[in-house]
């Protein structure tokens, strides 16, 4: 995987998730951050920090990105969400427009 095809997402606790750019683009918010014109740090280094999103939730979000790509290409599986994560995940999803 080439470096320019990946992005780094950093959680509130500082954990780094390196994922495919395509997957991250599922989120409208991340897409805007990475593609917006101008000298933003996010655009330049291809990494985004989320001080509001915990590691557990960010991991789940990344899983969702990949699941969503698979789903779009016709693979119909269920995306399981643990009830105890629903609230936090809901807020993160709302913020990320996924």
């Amino acid at each position, binding site marked *: 995987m080439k470096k320019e095809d990946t992005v780094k997402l950093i959680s509130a606790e500082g954990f780094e998730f390196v994922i495919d750019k395509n997957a991250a683009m599922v989120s409208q918010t991340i897409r805007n951050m990475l593609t917006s014109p101008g000298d933003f740090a996010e655009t330049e280094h291809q990494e985004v920090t989320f001080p509001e999103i915990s590691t557990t939730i960010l991991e789940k*979000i990344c899983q*969702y990105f990949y699941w*969503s790509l698979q789903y779009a290409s016709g693979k119909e599986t269920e*995306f*399981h*969400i*643990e*009830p*105890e994560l*629903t*609230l*936090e*995940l*809901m*807020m993160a*999803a*709302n913020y990320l*427009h*996924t």
Partner: protein
Amino acid sequence: MADHSLVIEAGGELESPLVRRCIEAATQSADAVEMWRRQRRTLERLPSQLAEALLHRLLSRRLLYPSLLEVFKYNVEKVDLRGESSVDAEWMAYLGAFHFLYSLNVSECHRINSSALWSLSGMNHLKEMDLSRCSKVNDAGIKHLLSIRTIETLCISETSVTTNGVTLLSSLKKISKLELGGLFITDTALVSLRVLTNLQHLDIWGSDVTNEGASILVKFPNLNFLNLAWTKVTVLPNLPSITCLNMSNCTIHSIFKGGFNDNDNKATLKKLILSGTSFKDVTKAFSYFDPICLSFLDLSNSSLRDLSFLLSMKALENLDLSGNLIGDDSVEFIASVGANLETLNLSNTRVTSAGVGILAGHVPKLETISLSSTPIDDLAISYIAMIPSLKAIDVKATYVTGVDSSLEVLGNLKNLEKLNLEETPLKDEGVGPISNFKKLSHLSLRSSFLTDVSLQYLTSVTKLKTLSIRDAILTSAGIDCFNPPPFLKSLDLTGCWLLTKDVIFSFVERHPGIKIRHELVCDFEEAKHTSPLQTSVRRRFSSSPLKYEMSAIIDERLKYSRAELLSMQFASMAIVPPSDSGMSMSPE
């Protein structure tokens, strides 16, 4: 009830699919709720639109109970509990503690009484309150509301509030929308409200208000919506701000008083509803407002004969003249204001095919036409086909026969989506041309001349979503080899008395996406979704469901002579079109 949450989700707030999945997962079961309900700090941070979606989803999943409401008290601004029979004083106690509640709808919550409203007193942000049809709410309940100074919208239609209660409302100075329909209130109540100068929307249908009370309406300079249906008001004072007026079922002498100078502002009405009204002199009644902007006019069932007053109403988009005594001579007046018409209802009038001929060519924008129960015949169809924008045609209960492929011309209407041909003497060969209607999505047929052949024709109407083919002589074999169009969602076979239960169930099994209606299938889908509470309410009002079903079944054999019945016994073989007879109908 599921509709509420759908409406909210469709409101555009929650287009995020993951948010939707989270809400589904969070409301999966009572156990799932237990997993998150103690995450207090997270709950407090939840944005209001997410919290509201979650709350209403819990409600529709029947997982919401009063003490669970507490978790939402810091973020929910809008609560819609309409029609929930479980909502009572305990719910109100929790709702009263919501810090930022802006809008509360508890209409038709029959357990809400006046003392239940006590918990709401003193709320700081409540602006919209709907208590319509809470029949146990009376004047005492109004007293509790008086401490909510922020109220702008108050709906108390069909409650037990009286003139005394309404008089109290005069202290809620911010009120701009007030619905008092169906209350026994008198002129005194209306006069006491004259201090509410912000009033824009007033609904007092069915009250005992008279001309005397109506005369104080001039005190409301911003009033734009007024509903006086079923009252004794016959003359209105001049109210220049009114744009939407409903005086259905009144006896009208004059809309607005007139007798003013030319310099005075005349009201520019946009919407006027006068259904079931009796006029003293219709031309005079219409002479004191400016009709130039009038786009919606409902004059159904008003015993009108003369439509010459229409001439000045050039902006009309919606016109309902159903149930009047008008004939073809009146159609010229409609044609003269046809330039902007989009919807026209002429059902139950004396308009004939010739009248439709006058109309065609003058209504370029007409999308919906209803001519049901008029004496029109196939000739009218050829005129209707000349109205280019039509999307919906209703010719129910007319003499349209469909002979000589008379319906074929409707194929020229590129936007036609809805067609109602019920209760016409339509035969199979008349149905044939319908198979070529490209955009048709809703078709209603009801004729005892139709057979399996019609059903076969309809297979090729590719866009069809709902099909109703009632009282037809459809046979089991016909249903078995019916290949429904791909998007069909609902099939109404009510009154097709030759069908058996087995055939219908096997059809349902083969096509699970299609909802069938027939006397032999009780609506088990619906029964599954309605709550036990709702069914109990329904049961109270109707007699036992079994009894209802029995009365709905008529012995269709009554319609036929003995000889016809005997010949029909073998009909199922003969009726099936030849194309399919080879494969499915080989007689044993």
